[in-house]
């Protein structure tokens, strides 16, 4: 115990807490992973997509907190062929129409704001961990174009949309090369399970296509400038 105290005292004597600049901005490149509930998009939409998250932050003076706002965007597309007894957005494919080829795409976008707790950063140790909780207003658009069914060329393009405010949990780390410049890695969890999307295209049909995503994880790597 005495040894630990001595080591900590020695460390404190050789390091000083770095002072945070009041503002910062940057952008994260993201790898987004969003799965879907069975029969409600799992066989149509790509679980993995690429995204971008530009952000701007304010370090609250004399406190370990920061407020960060940003805009989340990610999209992906996928081509898939379904046969009878499989489900396309919650609707079972009938035998007289199989096989059906769809081109499906998804977009997630919307602003977010988070309150971050920053761990102390020392001049001698440029790594800084942070975490926080926030809210994002996300609009999800799921499009599904029928490329071909049975032996016909499809011409229908269905659009399912949902817009909700979602919880956002952020974990990350900054690595400072200079006082101003850092790279950062982030892990963001968003409860996109709430984005239950129904067809909003006005096309008349007996069965209404719907998409039910599950919660999402965004893995990000970005650049950060302080000023």
């Amino acid at each position: 115990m005495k040894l630990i105290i001595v080591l900590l005292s020695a460390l404190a004597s050789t390091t000083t807490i770095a002072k945070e600049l009041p503002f910062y901005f940057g952008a994260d490149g993201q790898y987004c992973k969003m799965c879907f509930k069975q029969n409600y998009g799992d066989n149509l939409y790509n679980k993995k997509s690429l995204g971008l998250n530009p952000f701007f932050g304010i370090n609250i003076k004399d406190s370990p907190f920061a407020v960060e706002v940003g805009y989340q965007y990610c999209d992906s597309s996928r081509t898939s062929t379904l046969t009878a007894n499989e489900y396309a957005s919650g609707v079972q494919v009938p035998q007289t129409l199989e096989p059906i080829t769809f081109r499906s795409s998804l977009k997630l976008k919307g602003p977010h704001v988070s309150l971050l707790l920053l761990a102390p950063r020392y001049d001698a140790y440029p790594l800084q961990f942070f975490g926080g909780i926030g809210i994002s207003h996300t609009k999800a658009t799921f499009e599904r174009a029928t490329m071909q069914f049975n032996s016909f060329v499809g011409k229908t393009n269905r659009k399912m949309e949902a817009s909700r405010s979602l919880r956002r949990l952020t974990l990350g780390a900054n690595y400072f090369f200079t006082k101003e410049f850092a790279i950062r890695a982030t892990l963001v969890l968003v409860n996109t399970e709430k984005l239950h999307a129904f067809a909003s295209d006005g096309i008349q049909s007996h069965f209404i296509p719907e998409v039910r995503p599950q919660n999402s994880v965004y893995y990000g790597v970005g650049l950060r400038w302080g000023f």
Partner: protein
Amino acid sequence: MDDDSLNISYFNNQSLAVSIFPEESQITIESHLIENLQKTQQELTILATKSVQTEPVFAPANTPIEKKDDTSFINPSILTQYDATTVQKVQEIANNPASSTKLSNEQKQIIAQFYGI
């Protein structure tokens, strides 16, 4: 025979159907028809109607009233009819592999729209 005479129809050489025109109409039965009636010794059912009938009264018993695989109801009206019977009939046709050859291209596209595809 002229139009006001007895009208006899044969079905499968086994039974007869007879209709008689209004009472005021004159009934004439030709002799060879009477002989045929005696040979067959079958019971005749006589129906009197007030109006003149141009079609046989009885249809053969084995003639179906409506074909089970009739797909004529697959038309744009099914997109606005949501009663359970219509929905069930459309699903039966759509999921019957034999229907594929009976449906026209337009009907297949209507079914696709019905399914939201």
